[in-house]
């Protein structure tokens, strides 16, 4: 097709905020620019399982944290950085063994704030029961960062009996969700000053490794796939699992636990709760015969007290996520395209 100028033109030469939003733009960037030639092709996993000394296996995951504001109801960038990486390890069926911590600090950051964040990292690590074994601190000039960024990397060891992979979802599996959705993203939005909203809402940021340990203990290899629906929300998590496993996922929209203030904030800003980030819940694809035991195990602890089934897995159409809507119709559950922007329309 011959495209002459002037024609509608979207930005394709520069990195956009939407490239980091966990949606289609990000998938495009990863697929076209970052992973080719760098990472061995394979399903999208939360953490990598690496052959290690003498036939053993090590589990690794790394995540950068750039959340703003750095302090928000329910947590801060320090605790979040611990939980995020511990959870990514857990999503692969691993228990955390060690954490690495790398700071990028902006010149001018109040040292008192750095101390508070570091104390929060330490407290979160103690609560998880994982040692921070190494670290790094870089300082960049004023205006070359927004205060402080953290990258945490986790080393984990597979839980006995765990065979979890994003690619192991199977037709017939049930889809379990451990708790309410949208809390983290909404808490961050309401903590941002520029939109003028206030809400008494706290992020769900919490470690999920104990929840996963209970699930694996109860369901063994019947726990097929796990994912923490962080950036991009539940919609992205489900689409990634559907793509990696080559399955169809159907969820029931009325079954989704969307807390009232989350629903309200989404209505006001025109957002979809399925696209809003979470930091303390997980979605699981579980073999039907193990589902009851796994669900009971989830509910046996505080992180999974509100666990429930939200859907089922079918064979076709592979890679597609659909939702049974409130009025009993179905719709495609698509990934966010780019950045999550408040809209008026």
């Amino acid at each position, binding site marked *: 097709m011959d495209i002459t100028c002037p024609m509608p033109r979207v930005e394709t030469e520069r990195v*956009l905020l939407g490239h980091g939003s966990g949606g289609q733009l990000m998938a495009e960037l990863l697929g076209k620019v970052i992973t080719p030639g760098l990472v061995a092709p394979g399903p999208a996993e939360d953490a990598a399982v690496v052959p290690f000394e003498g036939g053993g296996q090590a589990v690794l995951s790394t995540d950068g944290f750039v959340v703003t504001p750095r302090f928000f109801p329910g947590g801060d960038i320090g605790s979040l950085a611990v939980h995020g990486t511990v959870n990514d390890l857990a999503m692969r069926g691993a228990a955390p063994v060690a954490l690495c911590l790398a700071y990028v600090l902006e010149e001018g950051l109040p040292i008192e704030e750095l101390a508070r964040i570091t104390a929060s990292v330490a407290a979160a690590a103690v609560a998880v029961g994982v040692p921070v074994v190494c670290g790094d601190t870089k300082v960049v000039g004023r205006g070359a960062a927004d205060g402080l960024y953290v990258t945490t990397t986790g080393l984990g060891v597979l839980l006995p009996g765990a065979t979890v992979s994003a690619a192991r979802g199977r037709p017939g599996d049930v889809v379990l969700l451990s708790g309410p959705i949208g809390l983290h993203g909404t808490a961050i939005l309401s903590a941002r000053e520029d939109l003028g909203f206030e809400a008494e809402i706290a992020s769900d940021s919490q470690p999920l490794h104990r929840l996963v340990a209970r699930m694996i203990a109860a369901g063994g290899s019947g726990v097929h796939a796990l994912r923490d629906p962080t950036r991009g929300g539940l919609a992205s998590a489900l689409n990634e699992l559907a793509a990696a496993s080559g399955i169809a996922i159907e969820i029931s929209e009325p079954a989704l636990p969307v807390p009232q203030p989350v629903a309200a904030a989404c209505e006001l800003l025109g957002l979809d709760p399925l696209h809003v980030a979470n930091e303390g819940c997980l979605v699981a694809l579980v073999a039907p015969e193990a589902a009851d035991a796994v669900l009971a195990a989830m509910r046996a602890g505080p992180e999974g007290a509100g666990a429930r089934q939200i859907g089922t897995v079918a064979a076709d159409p592979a890679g597609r996520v659909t939702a049974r809507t409130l009025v009993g119709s179905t719709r495609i559950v698509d990934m966010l395209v780019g950045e999550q922007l408040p809209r008026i329309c």
Partner: protein
Amino acid sequence: MKYLDEYRDPALARRLLDELHAVATAPWTIMEVCGGQTHTIVRQGIDELLPAGIRMIHGPGCPVCVTPLAMVDKAVAIAAQPGVIFTSYGDMLRVPGSTGDLVGVKARGGDVRVVYSPLDAVRLARANPDRQVVFFAVGFETTAPANAMAVLHAATTGVPNFSVLVSHVLVPPAITAILDAPDNEVRGFLAAGHVCAVMGFTEYEPIAAKYRVPIVVTGFEPLDLIEGILMTVRQLEEGRAEVENQYARAVRRSGNGTAQAAIRRVFTISARTWRGIGEIPASGLALAPEFAAFDAERRFAVAELNASEHPACIAGQILRGTRLPTDCAAYGTACTPRTPLGAPMVSAEGTCAAFYGAGRRAPLPVLEER
């Protein structure tokens, strides 16, 4: 939420749908005018629950879809100027112009910010007296009073560094243009509830009468929409062509007088080009001469760009419901939601985007761990 949740009751929706199935005997093509209504229909899959003959056409009621290429180009040109803070509702940021979009301007160093309210833009101007703050005043009659108040407020309290790039459009002329098209297939309209909350619905009465089309002022929740469709089909089946009000909890016949007065004070009616449709006389709002000082087009003297749509795009016919996206050669190949060639692919509520979202296509792989 009160006044939302009640109107989402699945059992009541079922009842209304049953009644609709019982009432509808002939095929009818109905247009919901408003993008917000399209959103509910697509998101709840209401169209799939309708009787086979009832076909919903997504109308031009989405500012993202109808803002012309040339106006997006002006926004991009102004936003790229040094010293400018360009503010906009989030909707407009990803709309492609012929030289790029506003997210691209931002990525290249422009100061583009999303605001929730136009008053936030005025506030920003007051906080940054040495910068020019421009607000992209798009929208329909619903949004016009808010945008008018921003201009009035800036004028009254003296915020000289504030200006607006106006691209306001009006619904009735668009409906008339659709009805005037020789190949028009639309037989009834759901009028936009919030437009009517501001304007009332007296101006639709002559249209209903002249063109013999039922027009039902409709809300945005599932029950509202199904009831609005039901009321329209009832009129069609009964051979009536009246203006009815499904959304009586928020809409009065004469609308919101204070808001209308503010619109008349700040704006004058002007011709506007609608993306995918073309110029429609008296279909938009421009700043009244009294407020010309707040006109960003004058302040920044942006060249009038002669931007033309992509030749392959058949958006005009799609917006009028006479052709389907799958009739378009570019659909799904050169034209996708990520790289839209035409208006209906731009917003998630656009007809082409809605088709694309529902079509069979493999999700993009995410190869990275999260």
